[in-house]
């Protein structure tokens, strides 16, 4: 069945454009949203021919009185349940505006639909039943509008016919809702008494509300302002993709704010690399001359080949966004399972995605009651403020600086579970991003190696839990130190207590844990130390990453103690717990350990002493050019 006729297209043949304003209508269930929308369509002459007659006929067939709300509740299921299920977009015109009306459902179950609708709105109409007054839902919707950044809110007090058009009742409700909204920093643009069913106050003043001098609903809508242009803000071009369809390497994305033009010097965040815009590409005509502003989906080429990936942000160097791994966010939560400290999430900030951990919950509020709860968790349909730690750095802005880039969504199991506004980004960032040039050490490598009598290296011990990695690592550390070297032990678990405290044990987090271990170890190796890493590192791919990072300094040792012996040792009791099912993602009792194929050394600790094994490692380090030795006397070791 057909709903809407489109009269409103600003792109009229004669070229006139009228401001378009997107409006959401919210409020408590049954306070009359759908009825008001039906009325507005009728009063503004926006209904298709025969629509009204058809609906009246349908009502008659069903033996029900005609309801204005039927216009919207086109779906069978909705008429059966008597509640609006989802956001519907409808267009009509007032004197000077094209209005896109987003009808959002008021049933608590469907809050996510309301948020979906309201997040796209420039303004809102909050509807209140004159008899019932301000309810939880009313307050919650008001709060969410504020949270979503909808600043223009017109209040409609509906069903005045049920309170005999009482001016006193109207004033009482006006005062209550105004106080609530003022507390959120929102000033209503109008408060209109109406009867949507009978039409009073919708498009016309009637005698029954003769005591009211303000605008009708249509007039109130006519005064709403379209969204402000974002051109004036700093340039933000989040990268959606890099295309190499032909000989061009095009960086594609939508300018969220600011503007750019060929020749601009830009910085790519969070890496901080600098480049110039060579061309702005388009189709069918390319390249495009002239400045491109906020809202445009563009493609640019750069004057140099830099590593860029989806999620990076292109900005002007002087006004670049901050790079951060810590965010304070005000969120609304839509997921069934409450959000708690320690939860692992996926955060999306524009096209950028990053795994994240909730490190603190500062506030948790039920917007219906508006009192802060115990700060343990944020329940479904509640809001709160949280601190999150990200597993890789992102570039973002506080939403007060940039409403487009300063917001993010949270995903749980591949589905959007909440959204929020960035309140602040971690301090202590580079104020002005520059090309990263690592500061060279004051010492030359040969100075260090002359003292330590070895080159830098990453000695990577991999193997099942309890295979003897840490024991061996400590023995090796002692041995090297005794000989005047500079060994440094990096144990996987040690780093997890500090540097890697934001990581869990999912496959992705384990990979990141290994990556960071490798980076730290490599840094030490490049400065002449021998970094001894003891980590299960079960995934071949992760060890390959470590090898790639450490490059020629990498020496892999597979501590290949048989699994049954490892389990029999079980010094930390992990095997026992895992067998009892109390330790998820524990490596060892499945076949999830991927044996190295080409380790520099394989050692089975079940068949030899620790000193013996340390000897063997030392020999390998000599043979492979890490330890300086007068002459490696092979015969002595036979």
């Amino acid at each position, binding site marked *: *069945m*057909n709903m809407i006729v489109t009269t409103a297209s600003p792109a009229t*043949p004669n070229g006139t454009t009228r401001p378009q304003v997107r409006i959401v209508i919210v409020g408590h269930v049954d306070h009359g949203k759908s009825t008001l929308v039906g009325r507005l369509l009728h009063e503004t002459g926006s209904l298709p021919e025969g629509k009204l007659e058809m609906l009246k006929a349908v009502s008659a067939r069903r033996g029900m009185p005609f309801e204005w709300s039927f216009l919207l509740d086109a*779906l069978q299921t909705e008429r059966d349940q008597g509640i609006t299920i989802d956001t*519907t977009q409808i267009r009509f015109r007032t004197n000077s505006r094209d209005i896109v009306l987003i009808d959002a459902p008021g049933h608590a179950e469907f809050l996510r639909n309301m948020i979906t609708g309201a997040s796209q709105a420039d303004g809102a109409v909050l509807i209140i039943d004159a008899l019932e007054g301000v309810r939880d839902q009313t307050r919650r919707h008001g709060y969410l509008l504020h949270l979503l950044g909808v600043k223009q809110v017109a209040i409609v007090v509906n069903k005045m016919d049920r309170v005999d058009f009482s001016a006193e009742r109207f004033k009482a409700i006006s005062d209550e809702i105004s106080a609530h909204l003022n507390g959120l920093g929102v000033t209503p643009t109008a408060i209109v008494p109406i009867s949507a069913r009978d039409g009073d106050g919708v498009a016309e003043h009637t005698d029954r509300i003769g005591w009211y001098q303000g605008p009708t609903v249509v007039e109130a809508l006519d005064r709403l302002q379209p969204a402000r242009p974002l051109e004036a803000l700093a340039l933000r071009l989040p990268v959606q993709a890099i295309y190499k369809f032909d000989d061009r390497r095009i960086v594609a994305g*939508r300018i969220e704010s600011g503007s750019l033009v060929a020749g601009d010097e830009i910085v790519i965040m969070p890496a901080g690399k600098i480049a110039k815009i060579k061309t702005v590409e388009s189709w*069918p005509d*390319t390249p495009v001359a002239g400045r491109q502003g906020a809202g445009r*989906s563009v493609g640019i080429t750069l004057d140099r080949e830099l590593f860029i990936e989806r999620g990076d942000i292109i900005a002007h160097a002087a006004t670049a966004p901050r790079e951060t791994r810590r965010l304070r966010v005000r969120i609304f939560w839509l997921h069934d399972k409450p959000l708690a400290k320690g939860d692992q999430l996926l955060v999306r900030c524009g096209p950028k995605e990053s795994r994240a951990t909730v490190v603190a919950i500062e506030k948790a509020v039920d917007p219906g009651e508006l009192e802060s709860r115990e700060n343990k968790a944020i329940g479904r349909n509640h809001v709160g403020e949280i601190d999150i730690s990200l597993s890789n750095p992102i570039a973002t802005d506080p939403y007060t600086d940039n409403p487009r880039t300063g917001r993010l969504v949270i995903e749980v199991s591949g*589905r959007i579970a909440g959204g929020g506004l960035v309140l602040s980004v971690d301090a202590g960032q580079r104020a002005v991003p520059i090309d990263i040039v690592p500061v060279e050490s004051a010492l030359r490598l040969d100075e260090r190696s002359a003292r330590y009598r070895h080159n830098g290296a990453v000695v990577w011990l991999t193997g099942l839990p309890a295979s003897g990695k840490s024991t061996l690592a400590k023995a090796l550390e002692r041995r090297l130190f005794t000989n005047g070297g500079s060994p440094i032990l990096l144990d996987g678990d040690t780093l997890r207590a500090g540097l890697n405290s934001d990581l869990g044990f999912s496959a992705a987090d384990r990979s990141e844990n290994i990556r960071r271990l490798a980076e730290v170890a490599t840094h030490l190796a490049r400065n002449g130390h021998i970094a001894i890493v003891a980590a299960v590192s079960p995934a071949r791919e992760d060890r390959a990453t470590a090898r790639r990072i450490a490059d020629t300094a990498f020496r892999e040792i597979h501590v290949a103690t048989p699994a049954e012996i490892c389990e029999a040792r079980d010094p930390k009791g992990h095997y026992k717990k895992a067998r009892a099912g109390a330790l998820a993602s524990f490596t060892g009792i499945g076949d999830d350990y991927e044996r190295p194929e080409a380790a520099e050394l394989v050692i089975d600790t079940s068949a030899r002493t620790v000193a013996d094994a340390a000897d063997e490692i030392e020999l390998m380090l000599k043979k492979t050019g890490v330890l300086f030795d007068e002459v490696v006397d092979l015969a002595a070791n036979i």
Partner: protein
Amino acid sequence: MDHLDQLEAQSIYIFREAFARLKKIALLWSLGKDSNVMIWLARKAFFGRLPFPALHVDTGKKFPEMYRFRDHYGKEWDLDLRVEPCPPIDAVDPTLPPAARSAARKTEGLKMALGKYGFDGLIAGIRRDEEATRAKERVFSPRGLEGNWDVRDQPPEFWDHFNASPPQGAHLRIHPILHWTEADIWAYTKRENIPIIPLYLAKDGKRYRSLGDRDITNPVASTASTIDEILIELEQTKVPERAGRALDHETEDAFERLRVAGYL
């Protein structure tokens, strides 16, 4: 940026998101005004090419002008065109009214094509203003394993963040022109000089506002023989766009039943 520029930029953004986040997508090309605009927008998004197949699920009952258009522009636009057939009418739910049953063949054909290629995303040119159930759609709309649409459990979608992880074996419908209106489509077609099928322009006092199968599509009374005249007509008309589509009017819920089952 004018209104059309804004619509265009938004659609391009959606195309690029779909291409970046899904593994194997295709564009549903129905040969009508909307999907032609859609192809044009995709070529804008990807600098002149369509980097994924254009899928025409062919009921075999389109107008000859439509087939001619397909064959000509499929080549000219260098599309990776996949024409897929639909099953015979008796393979379709016999409880549907006749026109809806005829349209449901397309749903079945679509399912067969999905099974054949294993797409995880299908780009479709539906618009919110066409029809009430379409008004409730998401831009990225998950479909169940049977291709069905659960209108009561749609994921939240806001701030241009889309749910792009369909469950294993299910797929997503992506709607890059959901926010466009009929008038927008024509104004943009004119501005960009996008080719159209002549059936949309009035001849002998009639024109098609919406093109479907020959047997279930009727023309409307009109004298609009140019796009400019169509735009003026749309300014004034109160007749809904799909008035000529029989399947929308057979029973109150026929269209919704079709969509829940996976129709576009």
